[in-house]
């Protein structure tokens, strides 16, 4: 390839990229640069996930409090009572993935829409050794590779020998370990 041909090619690429940036409202530079640099789709997906685009969004830390959304009616003001009373029996069933929901407020976790059971299961790989979960414990996520089963009108997740049922604690969806329903 001659020097001038190389120059022409690179300026063509630059122009294309520039044109895309102008015309596409949802222009994603990483996709274009990935294609140009020969980065595989898998790599590109990993990059997107690392940037928070892959639906992971699992917080690195637990949440210790959140802003009260009313002046005299905030459930947060009762947090300590609730925490001591009921749901202090949760067990961290999954040490590689911190699924212990019971942060200081215990009953609320504003991150929880990103704990899609299935999506989380896919994102977390098989390094997790699931031991039998303690019946009655409450977690925010269920282990990977669970199957959902409807028995009667009730939804269960079967995860190996453990069975979970979704339930609300406050406005958060949590999963309680139940005895095998069948």
């Amino acid at each position, binding site marked *: 390839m001659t020097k001038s041909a190389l120059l022409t090619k690179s300026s063509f690429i630059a122009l294309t990229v520039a044109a895309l940036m102008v015309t596409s409202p949802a222009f994603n530079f990483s996709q274009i640069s990935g294609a140009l640099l020969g980065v595989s789709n898998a790599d590109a997906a990993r990059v997107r996930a690392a940037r928070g685009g892959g639906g992971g969004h699992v917080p690195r830390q637990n949440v210790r409090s959140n802003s009260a959304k009313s002046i005299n009616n905030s459930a*947060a003001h009762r947090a300590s009572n609730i925490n001591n009373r009921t749901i202090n029996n949760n067990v961290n069933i999954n040490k590689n993935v911190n699924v212990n929901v019971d942060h200081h407020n215990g009953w609320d976790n504003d991150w929880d829409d990103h704990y899609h059971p299935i999506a989380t299961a896919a994102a977390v790989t098989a390094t997790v050794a699931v031991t039998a979960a303690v019946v009655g414990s409450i977690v925010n996520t269920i282990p990977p590779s669970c199957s959902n089963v409807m028995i009667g009108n009730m939804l269960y997740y079967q995860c190996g020998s453990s069975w979970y049922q979704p339930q609300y604690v406050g406005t958060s969806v949590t999963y309680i370990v139940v005895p095998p329903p069948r």
Partner: protein
Amino acid sequence: MAHRSILTLAVSPLLVILALFAFLAPFDAAVGETTGAGAGKDAAAAEPPAIDPDAVEALVAMSTDLRKLSSFSLHADTTSELVLEDGQKLQFQGALDVKLRRPDRFVVTMKSEQKSRDVFYDGKAVTIYAPQKGFYASFAAPATIAATIDKARDDFAVEIPLADLFTFDKDDRIIKSAKSGFVVGDEVINGTPCVHYAFRQAHVDWQIWIASEGPAYPAKIVITTTDDPSMPQYVAYLAWKPDTKISSSDFTFKPGAKDVNISIVNLAAAAPAKQ
């Protein structure tokens, strides 16, 4: 020429000092007056008045006007905050839509990137719905909005955002709970001339901006949680649609084909017997 500039140089610091004195003198007098008046008041009453009567009056006027609404729609653009274990604070954008009809109907839609919930109250039951997850749960509810908000909070740890604005049919808790309050001043919120007030009470400091023309509806609320040293805040900009016609069916939850009914933990039932 040379003489004059030397004279100017010599005189100008003097002028500056004189000017400063002239400026400071009235301030000194003013400070003296204020201190004097304050001391007088302190001597008269054991404690200085914590709540400015004008601030209380503004809340009363707001309550009165809100109580007049037999139904309304309210849209709020909100930011809420989470505090992580190490104290780091994160802020999230959200939206809140409320439709309410006295005495026994409301539907609240909360939308944000991390958490979206709908809460329906149809006079008989409260239903919580997570649209992204497709889970809903219900519990039996009392006959009024205020009692339902109390039950949701106390028994089920369900907080209805800005519920203070819906419960005027019961009492004026918003006024009675304040420990201190004062008038901050005039401010325009999204084009609405308002007066800005600041209050403190147990657990929260809060500020409210109440329209100064027309009905005394609040245009903005800031609630600062003081229990946590990181002091997370909730901010809501409010747009009111008074006396809107709301169809009764809007208050009733209708599950979609894929939605699943699950349970909600009753914290009161799970608690040990009350002493």
